């Protein structure tokens, strides 16, 4: 077995048994990155020396009997998490030279638990995108390809495309990611791996470059549901440095994976049955529900009546917050500065931001600025907040009848890099099944459940009550066991 093929759990066992060292495991991943990253472009920055040094330290800790819960596991870190002394770009030219003097809470938690960071994973610029094509550091290629068109280069999804592609291609055992409208779940589904966006407030946002503060939430992607559970347990926890972080205990998520679904009521929202949705997605969904019934769960048709307003609501709230969050990138204190010798302050702003931001980021700043403007605020931003409350209420009502909700993760499989690029709204439709969980602050997990006719992975989504990730993991793990998803992408280490 190639060392990059371990699951996180498998690697932990092998490390514990002394079958492999963290240094060997790390080196195997660095070798794979060296070979495949020029093609896949999953990493913006690879910190090989640092990774090996940390792996050796980890081996020493383990030898001393001081192994942490993630001791020696090589991970990829989405380049939205600030890492002390390591360049953090957010996929943008404007932060192309930014080296944070501080560590995000989530990555600090992972380091505390013994993880080894291989490097910084590519992403859509400022996490704005569903295809990882808006990155200033080039697009990421999905390691999967179509059976009848193997040369077509496919997107890994976004915005955590680098994280998902790295994990799928065995360039990391797991990765951190963030999800504002689906940025964990959609790329996980496109790349045939698992990923969870936990409840809003479960992971600290301190040190994560902000996109939309009321929606952003960190979470893991990994090749199994249990691996996600292991990573999330380390990433999560109350942080006094984030006023929106929740002061709730972090349970043993991995233990919940083995709970089973007997007696659980699984909601099936009728509004997620879209016109024109590929039949194989509908079929996958029905298959997933059958698996759960076979395991003793009851499926219940439910209604989430405001679902159809979720996407427009999201594309008002998220750009509004982004337009304000991104105002700090002004060329004054750090990052890119483009200035004329005799220019004034306004000139500095205009040149810096014109050169520093890509087209999609500019589009969202403009949308966000518009919806917050005097005279439009009530019609757009305020209305969106009201609809958001209704969407939250839809779920509240649903939880009176069901324990979890299962839906498709995405309305399609991965698409080509040159597809869906003409019209931003077509691209935005990728998030149609995922944005609701962000708007309502609920945990949502994507789990690979099958392949489409082209041999591309398709995922299902499990949504749960706030701070009830355990039920989400239980349902996700049950789907994972039943699906027995063993297909592998063409581009991968050890292949």
């Amino acid at each position, binding site marked *: 077995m190639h060392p990059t093929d371990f699951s996180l759990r498998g690697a932990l066992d092998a490390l514990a048994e002394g079958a492999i060292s963290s240094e060997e495991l790390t080196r195997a991943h660095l070798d794979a990155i060296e070979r495949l990253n020029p093609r896949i472009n999953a990493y913006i920055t690879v910190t090989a020396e640092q990774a090996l040094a940390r792996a050796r330290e980890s081996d020493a800790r383990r030898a001393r009997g001081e192994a942490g819960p993630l001791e020696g596991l090589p991970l990829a870190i989405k380049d939205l998490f600030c890492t002390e002394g390591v360049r953090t770009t957010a996929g943008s030219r404007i932060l192309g030279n930014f080296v944070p*003097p501080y560590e995000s809470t989530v990555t600090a938690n992972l380091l505390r638990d013994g993880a080894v960071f291989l490097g910084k994973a590519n992403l859509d610029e400022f996490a704005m995108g569903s295809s990882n094509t808006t990155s200033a550091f080039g697009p990421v290629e999905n390691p999967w390809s179509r059976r009848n068109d193997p040369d077509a280069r496919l997107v890994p999804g976004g915005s955590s495309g680098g994280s998902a592609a790295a994990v799928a291609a065995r360039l990391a055992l797991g990765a951190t990611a963030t999800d504002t409208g689906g940025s964990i779940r959609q790329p996980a589904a496109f790349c045939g791996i698992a990923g969870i966006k936990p409840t809003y407030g479960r992971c600290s946002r301190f040190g994560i*470059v*902000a996109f939309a*503060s009321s929606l952003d939430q960190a979470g893991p992607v990994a090749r199994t549901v249990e691996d996600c559970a292991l990573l999330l347990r380390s990433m999560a926890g109350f942080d006094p440095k984030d006023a929106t972080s929740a002061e709730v205990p972090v349970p043993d998520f991995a233990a919940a994976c083995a709970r089973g679904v007997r007696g659980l009521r699984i909601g099936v929202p009728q509004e997620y049955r879209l016109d024109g949705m590929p039949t194989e997605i509908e079929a996958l969904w029905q298959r997933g529900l059958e698996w759960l019934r076979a395991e003793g769960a009851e499926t219940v048709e439910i209604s989430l009546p405001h679902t159809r307003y979720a996407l427009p609501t999201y594309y008002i709230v998220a750009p509004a917050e982004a337009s304000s969050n991104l105002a*700090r990138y*002004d060329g004054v204190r750090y990052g890119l500065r483009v200035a004329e010798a005799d220019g004034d302050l306004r000139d500095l702003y205009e040149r810096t931001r014109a050169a520093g931001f890509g087209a999609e980021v500019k589009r969202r700043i403009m949308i966000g600025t518009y919806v917050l403007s005097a005279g439009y605020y009530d019609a757009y931003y305020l209305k969106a907040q009201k609809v958001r409350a209704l969407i939250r209420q839809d779920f509240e009502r649903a939880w009176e009848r069901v324990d979890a909700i299962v839906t498709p993760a995405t309305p399609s499989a991965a698409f080509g890099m040159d597809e869906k690029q003409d019209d931003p709204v077509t691209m935005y439709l990728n998030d149609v099944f995922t944005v609701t969980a962000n708007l309502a602050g609920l945990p949502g997990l994507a789990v690979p459940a099958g392949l489409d006719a082209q041999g591309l992975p398709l995922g299902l989504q499990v949504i749960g009550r706030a701070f009830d990730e355990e039920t989400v993991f239980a349902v996700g793990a049950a789907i994972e066991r039943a699906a027995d998803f063993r297909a592998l992408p063409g581009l991968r280490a050890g292949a």
Partner: protein
Amino acid sequence: MSTTTTYTIEGRTGPWELVIGLEVHAQVISRAKLFSGAATAFGAGPNTQVSFIDAGFPGMLPVINRECVAQAVRTGLGLKAQINLWSRFDRKNYFYADLPQGYQISQYAHPIVGRGAVEIELADGTTKIIGITRLHLEQDAGKSLHDQHPAKSFIDLNRSGVALMEIVSEPDMRSPEEAGAYLAKLRQIMRYLGTCDGNMDEGSLRADVNVSVRRPGEGYRTRCEVKNVNSIRFVMQAVEAEARRQIEVWEEGGEVEQETRLFDTVRGATRSMRSKEEAHDYRYFPDPDLPPLVLDAAWVEELRAGLPELPDARRARYIRDFGLSPYDAQVLTAEKETALYYETVAKGRDPKLAANWVMGDLFAALNRTKRTIEDPPVRAEHLGALLDLMRDGTLSGKLAKEVFEAMVESGKSPGAIVEERGLRQVTDTGAIERAVEAVLAANADKVAEYRAGKEKLFGFFVGQVMKAMQGKGNPALVNEALKRRLA
């Protein structure tokens, strides 16, 4: 409360009334900033009190400083205002080099403190209630320095993120005097509460002054806002100057435009800063990084119970319990430190005598030595001891003045000075008898006149005796001896 004649400014075409409202920005006394742990001391080197949060670094998040909230609540309670148990922070978005986040966190829609009232006293002895509309918490911006380099602006972020209270009044003031009295009263209340040091020179207290004028009996006309006025005197001058400018515009058939103006303290005039059309669209929206600020009613009551005595209550107590005149009570309570000094001196002593010494000799000494009541040349305990020496007859009033001057010079206690200089009053009746004898013998003619009925000569004899005794004679004993001998 009473209203005398309304203050007006006489224009070419008749009298004009003034309508004034103030937005006061008061820096909260706190060790740390409103949303970061960085320090807030004045005068530190540029950019030395700046956290990554204050500098708007990527991924940095604000977390509310509970002490700043407590200070805002205390101030609200001191202004007899409604405390809102639910309030919220909004972002006010605009670009400027000294605003690192590109937005200021403020309370736009839901302030922490609602309606309140402040009573002001005017020179003619009348009082007036000025309504408080609201008080909210917000962050200060940094400082742009344009005079350090010919082509560049420098930015100092020490102030960035410092907690401010914006206190908005109703348009209840009608004269420069009222505006000045209101600001002075606000300052006094906050200094008593310990919520704002009120140092206007250091920018801890600034006022935006809203002024409009109208014909007597009219409704409101268009107002202008004069930004960032930083002394009570300048507020009064700015009101006057802006009112006169507006009167001229109206009288020349023009229309006052709503705009933001600046007060030029050198020229004593206001000038336009930006018009209504140029006003920013701040795109306020709730800050998604901060949950609503929810206060526990019991905590507010705890803060209320811990409030110090405020100036109005203290002044009333001085009049009631100490028998001081309203004027003396006003002067002694104007500053908390003066009141504390006075109370130390007056404790267990004659309160009126204590008031005379504090307001007379001590204030004169402060002026002369250019020292403050917080750092006085004579400690309150020492002044009290001096009063005791007068009461027990050790010192005459005249000697006490001499001792006091020596105390100012040396900072020593009155007892030490009396010992050192041998200033102890002579109570030896034998010595007094001898001096009286000598004075009467030397002024036989005056003695005859006195006995013939010219009784006012008694003072002359007292003076002569005291002179002979170098002022050390106990006046009561001297009087007694003289009366006996002249009888």
